[in-house]
C-alpha cells in the first residue's frame, strides 16, 4: 500500500509530474515561451531540492526503491534535464511552430527517467521506460517540417517499439519461470541454477535494453536519430535516456542471478568489445558532427559495459563516475552544436565544415568544444580521463585483459577522429560563413550553462575527489 511516508520518497517524481501538469495548464491558458521555460526549470530545481528529503525516507514505496543508485541516477537525470532546458530556450526562440510543448514532453520524459532509475519491479520498469520513450518520439520529430527530424522520430519510434517487444517477451519468459515480477522475487525464484527459459528471458531483456543503449549490433538507429533530431532532443536522448536505462541495466544485473551465468557473461563481454571497437571504427571518417558524436557515445557505452561484466561494489562506483564524466562531456559537446544552431533555422549546424576556424571567431565556444573533445578522448586533466581511469582500473583489478585491450585499442582509434574535429576548430577560416552562434550567446542562460559545464569538466579532471567521495558513498549504500 502506498502511504504518506512512501510519498516522501517519491517527492522528486511527484514534483516533476506536477510541474508537467502545471506547464500543460499554463500553455492551455496562455502561451509564453520564456515563462514556460522558467517554470520547467523551477520544477526541476525543486525536485532536486526534494531529493535529500526523499533519500532520508524510512521506507521505500511499493514497486520502487530509493537506494544509493536511485539517488545518484535521479540527481544526474535532473541536472541533465536542467541543462537541456537551459540550452533549449535559446534554440527554440526562432522556431516558427508552437515552442512550449517541447518542455511538456521533456518533463514527462524526466518523470519516466526518475521512475526508471528507482524501479524495483518489472511493471514499474516497463511503465517508466515507456514514459521515457514516448515523449522522446515527439521531441525528436519536433521540427516536423524538416524531413530529417521527422525521419528520426519515426525511426526511433519503430525500432524502439520493436525493442520494447523484445523486452516484454523476455519479461514474460522470466515471469513464466518464476511467477514473480518484483526483483527480490526474481532473485528468490531463480535461486537455483538458471535454466534455458530464464536465460532466454534475460537475453531478450538485454536485447531490449541494448537497443536503448545502442549497443552493437543494436545500434543501427543511433547515427540517423542523432543527426536528424533537433539538438536539444538529441542531448536529452544522449544523456538522460541512456543514463537512466544504464542505471536500470546495472540494477538488473546486480540483483538478478539469471545474469550471473558464465555463458551470459561471455556474451556481454563480446558485446562490450564489439561496441567499443565498432563505435570507434564507424566514427573514423564521419564528416557529420552529430553522427560522429552518436558513434562516439556507442563506444563510450561499450567501455561502460565493462562494469556490467565485472559487477561488485567497484563496478557501481565506476558506473557512477563514468556516467558523470560522460554526461558533462556530452552536454558540453552537444551544447556547442546547439549554440551554433540557435536560434532555430532549418537544419542544425552538424557538418564539420561549419566548425572550421571556429576558434578565430568564437574562441570561447571553440575552447569549450576542445575541452569536451579532449575529455571524450580521455586526455588527462579533463573529466573523461578520470572515467577512463576508473574503467581501466576496474578491468585490471578483475583481470579482464580482453576488455582492457579493447579499451586501449578503442581509445587509440578514437583519438583519430577526436583530433580531426579538434584541429578543424583551429584551421584557417573558410571564406564563407553559414552558421554561427548569435553574438550574445555568452550572456544568455544557455551559453552561461555551457561555460559552467565546461569548467566542470576541467574541475572534475583536476580535483575529482569530491565526486569520487560522493559516488563511493552512494554506491556502498546501494549494496
Amino acid at each position, binding site marked *: 500500500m502506498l502511504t504518506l511516508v512512501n510519498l516522501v520518497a517519491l517527492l522528486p517524481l511527484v514534483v516533476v509530474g506536477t510541474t508537467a501538469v502545471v506547464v500543460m495548464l499554463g500553455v492551455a491558458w496562455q502561451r509564453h515561451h520564456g515563462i514556460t521555460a522558467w517554470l520547467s526549470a523551477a520544477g526541476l530545481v525543486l525536485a532536486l531540492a526534494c531529493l535529500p528529503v526523499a533519500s532520508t525516507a524510512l521506507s521505500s514505496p511499493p514497486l520502487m526503491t530509493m537506494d544509493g543508485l536511485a539517488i545518484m541516477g535521479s540527481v544526474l537525470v535532473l541536472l541533465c534535464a536542467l541543462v537541456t532546458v537551459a540550452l533549449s530556450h535559446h534554440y527554440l526562440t526562432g522556431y516558427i511552430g508552437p515552442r512550449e510543448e517541447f518542455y511538456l514532453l521533456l518533463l514527462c520524459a524526466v518523470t519516466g527517467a526518475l521512475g526508471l532509475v528507482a524501479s524495483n519491479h518489472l511493471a514499474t520498469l516497463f511503465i517508466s521506460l515507456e514514459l521515457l520513450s514516448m515523449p522522446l518520439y515527439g521531441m525528436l520529430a519536433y521540427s516536423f517540417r524538416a524531413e530529417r527530424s521527422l525521419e528520426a522520430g519515426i525511426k526511433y519510434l519503430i525500432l524502439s517499439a520493436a525493442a520494447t517487444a523484445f523486452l516484454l517477451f523476455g519479461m514474460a519468459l522470466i515471469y513464466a519461470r518464476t511467477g514473480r515480477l518484483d526483483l527480490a522475487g526474481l532473485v528468490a525464484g531463480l535461486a537455483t541454477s538458471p535454466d534455458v527459459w530464464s536465460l532466454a528471458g534475460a537475453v531478450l531483456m538485454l536485447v531490449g535494453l541494448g537497443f536503448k543503449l545502442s549497443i552493437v549490433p543494436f545500434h543501427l538507429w543511433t547515427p540517423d536519430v542523432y543527426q536528424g533530431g533537433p539538438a536539444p532532443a538529441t542531448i536529452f536522448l544522449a544523456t538522460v535516456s541512456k543514463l537512466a536505462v544504464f542505471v536500470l541495466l546495472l540494477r538488473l544485473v546486480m540483483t538478478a542471478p539469471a545474469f550471473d551465468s558464465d555463458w551470459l557473461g561471455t556474451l556481454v563481454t563480446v558485446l562490450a568489445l564489439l561496441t567499443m571497437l565498432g563505435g570507434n571504427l564507424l566514427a573514423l571518417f564521419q564528416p557529420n558532427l552529430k553522427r560522429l558524436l552518436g558513434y562516439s557515445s556507442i563506444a563510450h557505452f561499450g567501455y561502460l559495459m565493462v562494469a556490467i561484466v565485472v559487477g561488485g561494489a567497484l563496478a557501481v562506483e565506476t558506473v557512477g563516475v563514468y556516467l558523470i564524466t560522460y554526461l558533462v562531456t556530452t552536454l558540453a559537446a552537444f551544447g556547442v552544436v546547439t549554440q551554433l544552431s540557435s536560434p532555430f533555422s532549418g537544419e542544425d549546424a552538424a557538418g564539420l565544415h561549419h566548425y572550421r576556424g571556429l576558434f578565430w571567431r568564437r574562441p570561447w565556444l571553440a575552447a569549450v568544444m576542445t575541452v569536451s573533445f579532449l575529455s571524450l578522448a580521455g586526455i588527462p586533466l579533463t573529466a573523461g580521463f578520470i572515467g577512463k581511469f576508473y574503467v581501466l582500473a576496474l578491468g585490471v583489478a578483475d583481470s579482464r585483459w580482453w576488455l582492457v585491450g579493447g579499451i586501449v585499442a578503442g581509445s587509440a582509434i578514437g583519438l*583519430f577522429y577526436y583530433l580531426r574535429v579538434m584541429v578543424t576548430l583551429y584551421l584557417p577560416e573558410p571564406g564563407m560563413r553559414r552558421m554561427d552562434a548569435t553574438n550574445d550567446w555568452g550572456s544568455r542562460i544557455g551559453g552561461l550553462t555551457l561555460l559552467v559545464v565546461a569548467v566542470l569538466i576541467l574541475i572534475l579532471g583536476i580535483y575529482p575527489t569530491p565526486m569520487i567521495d560522493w559516488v563511493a558513498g552512494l554506491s556502498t549504500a546501494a549494496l
Partner: protein
Amino acid sequence: MILVWLILIPFVGGLLCWQADLWGDRAPRWIALATMLFVLVISVVLWITGDFALPGESSRHWLLEWRAPWIPRFGIEIHLAMDGLSLILVALTGFLGALAVLCSWHEIDHRVGFFHLNLLFILGGVVGVFLALDLFLFFLFWEMMLVPMYFLIALWGHSGSAGQTRIRAATRFFIYTQASGLLMLVSIIALVFVHYSNTGELSFSYDTLLGTDIPDALAPWLMLGFFIAFAVKLPVVPFHGWLPDAHAQAPTAGSVDLAGILLKTAAYGILRFALPLFPEESQAFAPVAMTLGLVGIIYGAVLACGQQDIKRLIAYTSISHMGFVLIALYSGSELAIQGAIILMVAHAFSSAGLFILSGQLYERIHTRDMRIMGGLWGRIPVIPGFTLCFVAASLGMPATANFVGEFMVLFGTFPSAPVVVVIASVGLVLAAIYSLLLMQRVHHGPEYRHGALAGPDAREYGMMLVLLVLTLVVGLYPQPLLDITLPIAGPAAELFQEAATELAHRAGEVN
C-alpha cells in the same frame, strides 16, 4: 613548494601569453622568454645551492620533495621530488625552452599568443614529467604534454609535399604516443593492484611501489607496458614511425623541443621507473633492449645518409643517438649510465643547434630540400661555420660533449657486452658519413643559386654561440654533471647487478 612553482610558472606564463596577444605580437614573445628564463634561473640557483653528496645509508636522497594528498580514494598524491637527474633535465628544459621562443621570433608570424601558450604548456608538462614521483601524476604529465605538441605541429607546421601532411604527422605522433601511454597506464594500474593484494594498501607512490613482489607470470608484461611507452617516445626502432614526419613538419621550435627534451623524457622514464620498478625483468630483457638499441643506431644512421630533407636527416640521426642511450641504460654499468645522461644533454645541444640552423636556412632560402641547396658556404656568412661545429659535435668529435657521452657509454658497456660495443662502434663511422654528407650537400659543392644572403643577426648569433660554448664546456669539463648524477647512476647500476645475481641464483636453483 618551489617544485610546484617550477611546474606552474610555464602554465601561468602560457595563459599570460595568450591574453597578451591583444597588445601585439611582441608581448607574448617577451613574456614567454621571461618565463623560460625564470625556470632556468630557478634551476640554476638550485644547482648552485644544492647539496649533492652521496646519499646516506638510511633513505633515498631527494634534493627537494613536496607532497600533498590528491585523490585519497586510490592513494594518489601530488608527489614531486627533485634529485640531480631531474635538476639537470629541468634546467635543460628551461634553457631549450628559451631557445625555442627565440628561434621562433620571426618564424611564427600568425596567432603568436596561442603559439606561445602551446609552447609553454609543453614545457610545463615536461617539467612535470621530470618532477612527478607519483605514478598517476607522472602519467598525467606524460600524456598532457602531447596535446599542445599536437597543436604546435598541426597548426604552425610546414606543409609537406601533399597538402595536409602536417596534420597527418601530428595525428600520427599523437596516436603513437597516446596509445603506448595507455599501455603504461594499464601497467601502472596492474602494479598498483598487485601491491594492493599483497599489502592491502592502495598507493601510486613510487617509493611504496618499489620492490613490489609481482607474480612471475605478470611481471614481464608490466615491464613491457612501461618499456613500450618509453620506446615509442625515445624512439626505439620498430616504434619510430612518427618521428621523422613529426620533425620534418614541425616548426623549428617544435623540433627543438621534440629532439631536445621530449625524447629525453623517455630515457628519464626508463632510468627512473622501468629499471627500478622491474629490475629482474629488465635484466632479463637487457639483451633484447640492447639489440633494439643496436638496430636503432645502424638503422637511423643508414637512413639518415639517404635523406633529402635536412630536418628528416637530423631526425634520423636522433634515432641513432638514442640507440646509444638505450644500450647504456640497459648495460647496468655506472659509467655507461652516466655517459647516457651526458649524451642526452649533448644530444639536446647538438640537435637543437642543427634544427635551429636548418630553421634559419629555411627563413633565408625557403626550402629544406638539400638537393636545391649547395654552395651556401660562399653565400651566407657565419652560419656555415656554426653548422660545421654542430655537425662535428653530432659525429662525436673529441672536445665536444657528444664525444664524452659516447665514449663513456661504449667504455662502460664493454665489460658486460663487448659484442654490442663493437657493433655500436660502427655507428660512429656511419655518424661521420651522414654528418659530412649534410655539410657537403648544404654548404659545399656547386652553388645552386647565386647572390649573397643575410648573415645571422644578433639573436641568431647569440643562440648559436651559447649552444656551442655549452657543448664545448661539457665536452672539456664534464665533471660537474658527473658529480650531480653519480647518486642516481650508482644505485641504478647496483640494482641491476643485484638483479643479475638474483637471476643467476635462480637459474642455478632450477638446474
